[in-house]
Each structure stands twice: as structure tokens, then as C-alpha cells.
């Protein structure tokens, strides 16, 4: 018995044809086509699909592939209508119909289990779009039979001397499923044994499509082919020719570009890119970063001597680099750019123009060179360089404004934004933003979400040809930008924007009410803040508490590092805004992507995997003690708790608790008014802490999940790196599972769990977190009203759905 296959298509001929093709490669597999309507017209048939599913299922399960939208709908419905025990072993896989069918059929024929066959089909999807996918049969679950291709290298070589040839792959996507199947098919009628692989590396049997796909051979790779058999040379010749032909794909876009980085889809006048921050915005397009190549006359004051200009420039570069290094992850990258010696030597040639003129010329020359490279990543560095160069100019007294006053009422377009530029855009009245690059977890995007600035990102070059001033409609929910929308659409959008504003106002009013679950449990909807201004926004948006008060901003721009009195004053100002709301203060999280100018933190030693967060504070106990004393002093008359970032093992948490005790003791001895923190907690960001949470029992009073860093560390993907943004998926099974593990252990050990990462403010995640027993969701202040409303209506509709009683439903409504 093997896993069966059902192919659903709008066309009967198409489904039958693909089934026949796949059957040729896997004659023993049950492959059932379900194409066309009951009367064989174009469409899909519930009856045909249901029958095919039953016919294909021999007890080992069925993988279903489909072509267009309503084929998926009808199949889903057929599965929902079926016997649920049986339907549990039916898998729908979103994959190219032909390639997915062949890959799945071959895997099934090899005896692979349901998971492996589904993975094989999915791999075909990955191969077809350029992604790497996961090797089929590598599901690693139980002792299920693996496709025999995996053990290929251990097989003895056939007798005799093979014909050997080497050839270069020309089509960019290489030997993905379809070309591999084509090569395998070309062996029909010969008894030759053929093995293929990179020269000197692992080989697989060419007849095994999956094995060949698993080699991940791409355009430009050399492959060695060895053929045993009487007609070996002839077979070899045919294969080499087929590979050199490029399988009809040679003119596809070059070079291993993952699909996610490809150009956005443009349909008519609508650019479909990536959603960044919710909301609609309508306004003229204004490009940022269009800086003059030469400085205005008189801006650069010639120095008395080149020697003097050189000294001025060096001092400005050092000062700018130091300031930049304290401005988040972009700032740090910019600091490295301006300090580049190559730039300095380019500037040296023109020092007679004065330091500013020489510098700006060098920056533009270098940036032009980078931007002309044709490589998107390198070109992006050019934009960064110009932006970074501005800060050196500023040190020299020349201010070029990248944002300008024109953004008022407009949609700003830039390759990327620094996190500090987003609030500046809002302050100057921009209604939305479009980024050609960036990633959904970049700080600028997070800031935009917090401020409610609609933002669409990764539009690539799609907007390049539209002049500034063109009216665009930005849909931050759909991730689309519509160019010059027609009157009716624009009017409709304006109405929706006005309605959204009104709705937001109403939600803010409703948000002041607490959220009570049908079982009477209360969930705190709290704010993440970092400044007094944030505290005001938190109160205005109905925050019931502050689940995360970041303290990095309070010390970032301070030179010298603020002493205990200064920190106490800052905290008191924030606490006073918040009144009697419970506040969790996180002690300084230096390192990682949060450099502190006045502290000795570097990108390597104190990077994401280095001495960061609590690790740094335990190495510098005086900093921790000063901060804890300031927190306790400011806490008088408020409800303050403290928590530590970046905790991995129980001993660190224990050390943190002792530091709090010491700080309180010292304040008592000094006879200084203070209040002991109500609770002592830790951030859960490190997978090790999440997976062995029981070690913190009896040591900490609560956990707060930092879902952004937890996702980063779990997926080994830096959230400041656009190239790995796709991996940071809150839906990923690994993350969902680690949250299950954490909340289960925490419930057993009676440790309350809060979430203060981005996940808490994601509409599709918040409900799942509440269901896991999380007692507090802490998010950007602007998100509170909407999330509260969403949770309230979801809980109410659950109660009304028959499970809850009317009384409970009414209680949820009142909440």
C-alpha cells in the first residue's frame, strides 16, 4: 500500500493528463484525477472530488493537489463533509500541479509516508519558485520508510567502466522537479544505470527525481554524469545535450534570487508588495533621499590650509560615528560606513574645497559607484552611505534635510527608513510611507505600526517610473500601492480613512474598559513604552498597565551616562503619567541591536549572541545597582515591578533577584525613601529559558515573552537582516510549539505569563495567546484599542456560538 494522490483541476483533460504523466513515473501509485464539473464542463465537482478522495485512499492517506481558487474551495468543502477520521489523513498541498504531482507520485512510489509525500510536493513548489525547500523524506518522524535515493551513496557501483561526462547547468533554477523529471523520462527504453552529482561529491540515481532535486543543482553548477550500460556513450550524449538546452528556461531571471526578493506583482495600476503597518493613506508621492550631488554655493567654507581641512574632517567623522553608533541598528551600520578609510582617502583629493565639500563629493562618488553595481544589496548600501554622510556634514555645520517640509499630507517613498525618521515623518504630517526595501520586522516598520502610519514595503523598483507628486493610495493592510487611483476609488478611500479615524476614536473610548474572559479571568491589555511621550500615548489609548518600560532610550543620548538622581527623575516623570497603573520596568538591555554610546558595548562581544542584556549588567554590577536604586526610589506611591532581559539559566535570575534585594537593602541603610518592587520577573527570549522554564520556579514572580527575540533566536534569523525576514513567521510550528511548552510549564509552576513582543499586538496571534492563559498582552499604545475590540468580539462570538451560556456572553459584552 502507498499514499494516494488526487489531482483537482477545472479541466477534466488537464487533470487526466497530469495523472497520466505522473502515473508514467509511478505506475503502482493510486492517482485519481478529479477534473471538470459533473458534466465535464470547466469547473470543479464536489462529487468527483469526494469520489476521487475515497478511491485514492488505501488507508495510508492521500495528498491532494489543485489548480485554481475554487478548486481549493471545493476540495476543502469535500474534506469538511467527509468522515473526519478518514479526512484526517488527507492533505491538501499548495504546489504547482504538474511538478507537485510528479514529485509526490515518485515519493509515494518509493514508499514514503504521508508527511514525506506532502513534503515532496511542497519541495516541488520550492524548487519551482527558487526556494530551497526541505528535502523530502527527511521528515524525521518515526521509522517510516525513506525514499531509497537517500541511501544512494552507500550502494555498490555497478560492474564495468562507466562513460563519464561533465557539463555546466545553464538554466538559472537548475535541476528542480520538472527538468529532473524530464531527464529521468529520457531514460525510458534504456537499461543504463546513470548517476549524477557535483564532481567528487555525493551522487544519486538520475531515475530518482527526488534525489536529483535534493542535490539542489543550480545554474552555473558543474555536474558529473556517469553512465553504465551497453549504450552508455549515447545516453550520456543525450543527457548532456538536454542539460545544455536549459530545459526551455534559460531566459528566466538570473541567479538564485529567492522568490521573496523578486519584484512585487504589478496588476494594472496596483503594485502588490508587502504589508508593513495597517491603514489607508491617500496623497501625493514624495521621494526622500533626493539629495543634491554638490553642496549649495557657500555651504562649504574653504579652510586656511588642506591640513586644517583634514583635521576638521577627521574630527567631524569621529564625532558623527560616535553619535551614529548610539542610534540603533541602522545607526551602527552607518557609523561603520562613515568611518570607512576609502571614503576618507577619496575626500583627501579635494580638501582644497573645504572639509564639507570634499566630504560630500567623496560620499556621492562612492554612493554612485555602489548604486551602479546592479546588485540590489550593494545598491542599498549607496543609499545608506548618503544618509550616513549627512551626519558628518551636520558636524561640519552643513544641514541637508532628507525629509523636508513637502511630506505634509503626502506619502513618503524611500528605499528604507531609520527608526528615528518615522516619528519625524509623522511630526511633519506625512500620511503614509512606501519603502522599496526593508523587512516586516525592521525597527522603522515596528515604529510605524506603533504610530499608526500606514506603510507598504518591498515594492522594489515598481514605483521608479512614477514622478513625485503622483497621487497614490497606500493600503497597509493589503500591502498594495495604487497609482493615480480613479476618482471613485479615491473618494471611497477618503471616506474609509475618515471612517477609520472615527472608528479609532470610538475604539479608544471603548478601550478604557477592562477585558474579562467568559470564565471571569481578566486579561490586562498593556502598553510597551520607552519615554514620557509614550506614557501619555499609553494612557490616551486605554492601557490598563505598562507591560514593558524599556529603559534604553532614557540613557541612549545621555552623555555622560545618567547618574542615580537623573534616572530617578526620568522614571518619576513617566510613573507620574501612569498614576496607579501597574508598570513593569525592564532594566537596561544593552548590546544586541541596542548600543549605548556612553557604555563599552561593541557589535561582536555584545552582539545578539554575546554579553547582552542581563549578562552585561551582571558583568557591570554598578550599572545594575544604580538603575535598581533609581527604580525603587521613583517607585514610591506607584505600582512598580522590575524584570531582566536576556535570561538563559536559573542562576542568572537568582543573581538578578539578589541584586534587587541588595539595592533595597542599601536604600534602607542610606535612609532614602523608596519602595520595593512589587514583583521580580524575567523576559523569555532565549529558547533555553522557554524550554526549561521550571528552573525559574520560586525565583521569579512572572515571565514576559519577548516574542521578537525569541523568534530570532529560535529561527537563527536576525530581525535586522531583510534576507531572512521570511523566516520570522509567528505562525511557524516551532514557535507555536515553544509557546505551548512555556505556557504549560508556567501553568504547572503557577508562574504568570505575559507577552510584550510584537505578537501580542498581532490580531491573528493575540487570541491564541489568551487561550494559552497569558494574563497580559503588552503592545504599542496605538494598537491597544483595536486589539481589545478584536478580543472582545471574538470572545463574545465564541460565547454566542453555543458553547458559552448567555449570561457569560453578556458578561463579556459588559467587559
Amino acid at each position: 500500500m502507498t499514499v494516494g494522490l488526487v489531482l483537482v483541476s477545472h479541466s477534466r483533460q488537464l487533470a487526466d493528463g497530469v495523472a497520466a504523466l505522473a502515473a508514467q513515473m509511478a505506475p503502482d501509485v493510486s492517482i485519481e484525477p478529479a477534473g471538470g464539473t459533473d458534466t465535464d464542463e470547466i469547473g470543479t465537482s464536489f462529487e468527483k472530488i469526494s469520489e476521487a478522495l475515497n478511491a485514492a485512499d488505501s488507508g495510508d492517506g492521500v495528498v491532494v493537489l489543485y489548480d485554481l481558487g475554487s478548486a481549493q474551495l471545493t476540495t476543502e468543502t469535500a474534506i469538511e463533509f467527509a468522515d473526519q477520521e478518514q479526512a484526517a489523513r488527507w492533505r491538501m498541498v499548495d504546489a504547482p500541479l504538474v511538478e507537485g504531482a510528479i514529485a509526490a507520485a515518485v515519493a509515494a512510489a518509493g514508499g514514503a509516508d504521508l508527511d514525506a509525500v506532502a513534503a515532496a510536493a511542497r519541495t516541488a513548489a520550492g524548487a519551482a519558485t527558487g526556494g530551497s525547500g526541505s528535502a523530502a523524506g527527511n521528515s524525521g518522524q518515526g521509522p517510516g520508510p525513506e525514499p531509497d535515493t537517500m541511501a544512494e551513496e552507500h550502494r555498490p557501483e555497478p560492474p564495468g567502466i562507466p562513460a563519464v561526462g561533465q557539463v555546466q547547468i545553464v538554466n538559472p533554477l537548475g535541476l528542480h522537479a520538472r527538468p529532473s523529471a524530464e531527464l529521468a523520462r529520457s531514460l525510458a527504453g534504456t537499461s543504463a544505470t546513470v548517476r549524477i552529482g557535483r564532481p567528487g561529491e555525493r551522487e544519486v540515481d538520475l531515475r530518482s527525481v527526488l534525489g536529483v532535486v535534493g542535490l539542489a543543482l543550480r545554474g552555473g553548477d558543474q555536474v558529473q554524469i556517469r553512465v553504465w550500460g551497453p549504450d552508455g556513450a549515447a545516453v550520456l550524449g543525450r543527457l548532456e545535450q538536454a542539460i545544455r538546452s536549459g530545459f526551455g528556461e534559460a531566459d528566466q531571471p538570473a541567479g538564485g534570487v529567492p522568490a521573496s526578493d523578486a519584484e512585487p506583482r504589478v496588476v494594472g495600476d496596483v503594485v502588490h508588495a508587502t504589508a508593513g503597518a495597517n491603514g489607508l493613506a491617500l496623497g501625493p508621492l514624495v521621494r526622500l533621499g533626493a539629495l543634491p550631488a554638490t553642496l549649495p554655493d557657500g555651504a562649504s567654507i574653504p579652510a586656511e590650509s588642506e591640513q586644517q581641512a583634514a583635521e576638521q574632517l577627521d574630527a567631524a567623522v569621529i564625532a558623527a560615528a560616535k553619535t551614529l553608533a548610539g542610534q540603533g541598528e541602522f545607526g551602527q551600520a552607518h557609523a561603520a560606513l562613515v568611518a570607512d578609510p576609502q571614503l576618507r582617502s577619496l575626500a583627501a583629493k579635494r580638501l582644497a574645497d573645504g572639509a564639507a565639500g570634499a566630504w560630500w563629493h567623496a560620499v556621492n562618488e562612492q554612493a554612485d559607484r555602489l548604486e551602479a553595481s546592479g546588485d540590489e544589496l550593494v545598491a542599498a548600501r549607496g543609499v545608506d552611505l548618503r544618509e550616513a554622510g549627512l551626519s558628518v556634514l551636520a558636524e561640519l555645520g552643513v544641514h541637508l534635510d532628507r525629509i523636508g517640509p513637502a511630506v505634509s499630507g503626502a506619502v513618503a517613498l524611500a528605499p528604507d527608513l531609520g527608526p528615528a525618521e518615522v516619528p519625524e515623518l509623522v511630526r511633519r504630517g506625512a500620511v503614509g510611507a512606501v519603502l522599496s526595501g526593508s523587512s516586516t520586522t525592521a525597527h522603522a516598520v515596528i515604529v510605524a505600526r506603533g504610530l499608526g502610519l500606514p506603510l507598504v514595503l518591498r515594492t522594489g523598483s515598481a514605483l521608479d517610473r512614477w514622478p513625485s507628486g503622483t497621487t497614490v493610495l497606500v493600503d497597509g493592510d493589503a500591502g498594495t500601492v495604487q497609482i493615480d487611483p480613479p476618482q471613485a476609488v479615491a473618494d471611497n478611500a477618503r471616506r474609509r480613512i475618515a471612517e477609520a479615524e472615527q472608528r479609532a476614536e470610538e475604539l479608544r473610548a471603548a478601550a478604557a474598559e477592562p477585558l474579562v474572559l467568559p470564565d471571569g479571568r481578566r486579561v490586562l491589555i498593556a502598553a510597551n513604552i520607552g519615554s514620557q511621550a509614550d506614557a501619555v500615548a499609553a494612557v490616551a489609548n486605554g492601557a490598563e498597565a505598562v507591560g514593558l518600560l524599556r529603559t534604553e532610550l532614557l540613557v541612549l543620548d545621555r552623555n555622560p551616562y545618567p547618574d542615580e538622581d537623573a534616572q530617578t527623575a526620568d522614571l518619576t516623570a513617566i510613573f507620574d503619567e501612569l498614576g496607579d497603573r501597574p508598570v513593569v520596568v525592564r532594566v537596561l538591555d544593552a548590546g544586541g541591536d541596542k548600543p549605548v554610546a556612553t557604555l563599552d558595548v561593541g557589535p561582536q562581544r555584545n552582539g545578539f549572541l554575546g554579553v547582552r542584556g542581563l549578562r552585561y549588567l551582571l558583568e557591570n554590577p554598578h550599572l545594575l545597582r544604580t538603575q535598581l536604586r533609581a527604580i525603587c526610589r521613583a517607585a514610591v506611591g506607584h505600582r512598580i515591578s522590575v524584570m531582566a532581559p536576556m535570561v538563559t539559566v536559573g542562576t542568572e535570575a537568582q543573581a538578578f533577584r539578589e541584586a534587587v534585594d541588595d539595592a533595597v537593602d542599601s536604600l534602607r541603610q542610606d535612609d532614602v525613601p523608596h519602595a520595593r518592587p512589587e514583583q521580580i520577573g524575567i523576559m523569555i527570549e532565549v529558547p533555553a529559558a522557554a524550554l526549561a522554564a521550571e528552573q525559574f520556579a520560586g525565583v521569579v514572580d512572572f515571565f514576559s515573552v519577548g516574542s521578537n527575540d525569541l523568534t530570532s533566536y529560535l529561527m537563527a534569523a536576525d530581525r535586522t537582516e531583510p534576507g531572512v525576514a521570511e523566516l520570522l513567521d509567528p505562525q511557524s510550528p516551532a514557535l507555536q510549539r515553544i509557546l505551548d511548552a512555556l505556557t504549560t510549564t508556567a501553568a504547572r509552576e503557577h508562574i504568570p505569563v505575559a507577552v510584550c513582543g510584537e505578537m501580542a499586538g498581532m490580531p491573528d496571534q493575540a487570541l491564541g495567546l489568551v487561550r494559552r492563559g497569558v494574563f497580559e498582552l503588552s503592545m504599542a499604545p496605538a494598537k491597544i484599542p483595536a486589539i481589545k475590540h478584536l478580543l472582545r468580539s471574538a470572545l463574545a462570538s465564541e460565547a454566542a456560538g453555543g458553547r458559552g451560556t448567555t449570561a457569560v456572553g453578556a458578561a463579556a459584552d459588559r467587559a
Partner: protein
Amino acid sequence: MTSTTGCTAASTVAAVRAAAEAITEHKVELTTLDRQIGDGDHGENLARGFAAVLSKLDTEQPATPGAVLKLVATTLISTVGGASGPLFGTAFLRAATTAGDEPELDGPMVAAVLAAARDGVVSRGKAEPQDKTMVDALIPAVAAAEKAATEGADPAQVLHAAAQAADQGAADTTDLQARKGRASYLGERSVGHVDPGARSTAYLLAAMAGAVETEHSR
């Protein structure tokens, strides 16, 4: 007036028959609407599906409201083509599941049944409010039904409230731009036309409300 105001199997059958008549009556209008922004088969498809439902009801006599709804679901799903079959089918199927084996549905149950239908359509079609789909009629309809049920309305009144809100919801789709289904390919050209799916949903609810009321005042 009878002593009971609950929705029985008999009144559910009456409601479905009325719905079938309404769809037949408005077949041409629905098809015309669909021709403006879709592929022009909505009215025909639904009419064919409900004709099949009627002929099944002539031979079968389901014992509970849930069983009636399930019969409608299975029939629509196999006879209505396009995306409407799975969507309407799922709506009735989820409704049937929620109605369960209850011999009679009271006001709050009718509201719950409608909510289940809405959730089925939303989860199957992945449409959001304002995407210009039947969801834009269903969401206000369910909200109104729930409100009416909370205020103690009987099934007929709950259905009337739903029908009225659905009618308004359908009318409001005129200004929307389609984002789901075939109409979405038209982009802004879909603005200015009522969505046929929202319109037929409103007709179905209105017909059912009328039938249940007549049945109960008999």
C-alpha cells in the same frame, strides 16, 4: 397564533422553499448583477441548486431543523458550480452542525446558527469585510440577529432583523471595490455595482424571515 414561536423542522422547510422561490424570482436580476462584475452565472447556478433542493424536499422529510439545513448543504454543494457552491454549502453545513439535533430553535439559537454560517463562509472564502462579497451582507445580518436575540426576539423577528441588515449590507457593497473572487479582477470597475453574492444572501434571509413568520402565525 400557535402557542410555540420556535423554529421547527416544518417551519425550516417552509423557509427553504420560500428561499428557493425568491432565488427563482430574482434569477435574472442576480445574473445581470453578476454579468456586470463577474462571470454572469450566479443567478442560474443558485436557481439550479435550489431547484434540486426542492425536488429533494418532495421526497425526503428531515425530522429536525438541523437535518433540513444539512440536506440543503449537501444538495447545493453538488449542484451549484463555481465558488458559490462550496460557500453556500459550507454556510448551510455549519448552520446544520450548530443546530444539531434540536427539535426546535429559539431566537438565540437562530442567531447562533446564522453566526455559524457566517463563520463558515469567512473561513472557507477567506474574505474580509469590505471585500465586496456575501460576507458584507452576512456580517451585519448576524450582528443584527444577535442583537435582536439578546433583546428577546423570536425566530421570525431575529430573521427579520438579519434580513433587514443584510439588505442594507448588500446595498452598501455598491461603493466597494471587489478584492475577492472573479470580481476582484475588475479592480475599481467593480465599484458602483451591488455584489450579487451579497444581494442573494439578503434575498435568502428575507424570504426565510417571511416564511417563518407566516408559519408561526398560522
